[in-house]
């Protein structure tokens, strides 16, 4: 059992217009479990979200942004190997390029 610690750096430094959660997908049941993060910061523009103690498994970090021009970088502490998308390297970047009003992504990793 260990906590998952997520670091989020918004481009404009504030905490409006973005959300990040940890999720776990149960393939057999085709159900999604959402794990809340307790937030602190910002410290040097970086927000820290910490989960409760969680058992070893594959987890996802879900990040979503609203507002034109919004961009966030997300790193899971200790940079675990990204399982999906294969070959991806932290940080996960989620941004709006002006042609969409919302954007989101989820990366999965072993914990």
């Amino acid at each position, binding site marked *: 059992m260990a906590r998952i610690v997520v670091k989020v750096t918004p481009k404009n430094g504030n905490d409006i217009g973005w*959300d990040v*959660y940890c999720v776990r997908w149960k393939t057999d049941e085709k159900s999604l479990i*959402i794990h809340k993060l307790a937030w602190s910061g910002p410290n040097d523009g970086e927000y820290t979200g910490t989960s409760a103690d969680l058992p070893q498994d594959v987890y996802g970090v879900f990040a979503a942004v609203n507002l034109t021009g919004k961009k966030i970088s997300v790193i899971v502490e200790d940079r675990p190997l990204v399982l*999906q998308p*294969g070959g991806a390297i932290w940080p996960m970047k989620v941004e709006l390029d*002006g042609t969409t009003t919302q954007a989101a992504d989820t*990366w999965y990793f072993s914990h």
Partner: protein
Amino acid sequence: MRRNFALATSLAAVFLTMPVCASAQNTPTQPPAASGRGDDPLSGISFSLDVSEEESKSGASISGFFAKPTPEERSNPGRRTSLGWKLAIDVPIGGTDDLLDRATLDKLGQGTKLSGAITFLSYKSDPGKLGSPEFIALMDRAAQACRDKAESEQERTGCAYYGPSPSFVLKHLPSAQLAMQRALFSGYWSGGLKGSASFKRYDWVSAGTLAKNSSKPTGYSATAWAVYYPSDAVSAWKIETEYASAPEQMDEVIICKTVVVTPNLDCVKAAPSAPTRKDSLVVRGEYRRYFPFSSGKGGIGAALTGSLDTLSGDYGFELPVYFTLSQTTDVLPGIKLGYSSKKDDFTVSLFIKTSFGF
């Protein structure tokens, strides 16, 4: 000045404008900014420099929040609401400062402008939609598309997914972008109230004596707007109402002394009287939409804006259409149609470097 063919260069855009109506006085105009959305609740200090043939100005603003989600609220999926403020100044820095955009009936554009705004944002965060039947159906379709394209058993094995993910769908099934966004997102709102005041010196000449006169009447306006962003994440509806009371410079004419001896000295071209104050109450509606190509690369954007001055009965519309060919090219061509009832002025403009945006 009437031009059959005009080329305007700016830091932001290059336009080619051709008259369609013989009586039209065409001034190349930039497609409308996402007005109001520029007052999105961000905090901090910003500076801007905007130079074009029609509008050359510098600006500075400071903004912050009255209220925003607490860390506890951030931990829980649900609706987020924030209330922000913004103070701004815009100063003309050259070129013409008659910023009236006839097609959108923007009346308060002359001189130095001070403004203050209160903005709100309300959106919903719902990661649970990742596990919705609609989204999982798209994941399964994307995995099947991946397997269909796989050329080896190893590649087919790599098409399994660890969990639902937007990038997985976009990678293997880019044509399902809109369906994915509708399955994943909720619509959200922003809006605000804004008050502005403009300051400018107006000069005119008295007929008969050619005495020079000037005055500094203040223009002011109040605006309220709301924008709804549907769950497809590629469109926005906006409604706005603006009351403005602003001085309007008289057109320049040739004015002469009572007795003309030397025409070059006894006549001048100038405004013949003080500016007149004009009131307007404009209702403006806008639908902005981006149509992504099914390849997932590039698309077409459009923004239809209609404006009606309920006091004068003037109305106008404009429809810029933007083409995005790829994310890397600097060439962003487009075309803008515009009409203003005030001068029965219908224009078609071509532009080659202005990007679409919400």
